């Protein structure tokens, strides 16, 4: 059997790209100050690596259920994948994200 019979016709990764631990590339670590954070979700929207997830933890008064559902969530950084690009810190309208050099 030739090598060519054993390989797929185009290179395939059997795992999704989340298997790549790109957090190891990071020089600066974004840290969210939750006291300042307004749960506006702009960081979540701008993160180019989908490394900010929304998790329970908000304490905001909401005017309707849909908004309540949203603001009940707080942005949490997934440090396994965050490359430390700093876009979230740059975009945060209330400067609630600080970039701190990794030790």
């Amino acid at each position: 059997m030739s090598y060519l019979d054993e390989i797929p016709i185009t290179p395939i990764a059997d795992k999704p790209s989340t298997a790549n631990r790109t957090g190891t590339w990071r020089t600066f670590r974004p840290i969210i100050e939750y006291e300042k954070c307004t749960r506006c979700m702009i960081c979540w929207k701008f993160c180019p690596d989908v490394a900010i997830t929304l998790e329970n933890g908000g304490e905001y008064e909401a005017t309707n259920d849909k908004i309540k559902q949203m603001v009940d969530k707080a942005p949490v950084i997934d440090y396994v994948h965050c490359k430390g690009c700093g876009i979230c810190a740059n975009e945060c309208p209330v400067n609630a994200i600080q970039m701190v050099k990794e030790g």
Partner: protein
Amino acid sequence: MKRVVTGNYAAAFAAMRARVNVVAAFPITPQTFIVEHISEFVNDGIMDCEFIRVESEHSAMSATVSASATGARAFTATASQGLALMHEILFTASGMRLPIVMPVVNRTLAAPIGIWAEMNDVMPERDAGWILAFVEDNQEVHDMVLQAYRIAEDNRVLLPMMVNLDAFILSHTVEPVDLMEPEDADRFLPSYKPEHAYLDPERPMGVGIFTPPEYIQEERYQTHAAMEGSKQVIKEVNDEFAKMFGRDYGGLVEEYRMDDAEVALLTLGTVTSTAREVVDNLRAEGKKVGLVKVRFLRPYPTDEIRSVASRVKAIGIYDRAISYGVGGPAYIEARSALYGHTDIPISNYLAGIGGRDVMLSDIEFMFNDLLKNAESGKVRKELVWINTRGVEQ
């Protein structure tokens, strides 16, 4: 069902009959009517497909690639600048071995800007890993879109395919076309069942991935082997189509009155029809001329062209595009295939650039020039600019 339709309608109709699942397209003259007709079919409820309106041709090809990667039968169409904007993603489509079919209405690529027939849009894509077919009339547009899916989706091939038709001469000109009935189309072209890599939420995977040197050379070899292998599939599909519907296009090339021909002219696209008439006229005068319609530039019909050269005393290649500093691309391909296999004179005729009409007299000139080359055994002029003001032809 015979109807009088444009080449663009024939392409759109064939896409409907191929039951494509996804169409992602952006309008560009002279292709626009292909996707406009498809959007009408979808609106009228006679075509069941996801029609994605995208913001550019780069996105059109990206969306088509993604759709095809999920196992959908995907279709788009473009021309000229639109094809150039797709350039990057064309390589993704072939590298991921996706059987996308795309009619390309060959139009001048700027500058200077023009909307008429010229093949300088598709010629730079010869290295993109797509099968390149060139058609002569509207019936062939219709038939080749259907054949294209059979060729592209064959497990021995799995490569994307362009069906090239000349701007306006076919795209906007009506001709009688035998439009296929749905049951006939289904019989010829069953639905696409991908057995190779395809995206499935139940089975997450990455395709078109970052690949190091340890693997990529074999990947390239496989794609090349698939392109070579497609020659056999093209012939088989042509023969099966001919058996089912009575229209035989000859496979990779079609020879016309080549039996005892002393010279052969190789043509691409619609000029073939004009050349057929010239061959008939010159034959009536007793001149032994013949015609070879080159239907594919990728894969290149190397064996067929070598066989032609072995039977004639001079060979000429018609081009509707120029590779500056060398000559016509179809000429470059033919000469490369013939190197070391023939000593006969080979010459290149450029005509119809920018959509200029190619007249019977222009093609007559080419044949008479070839007959002179055959007699002298020498090339009078390697690159002949036909009907070009200020240039001696």
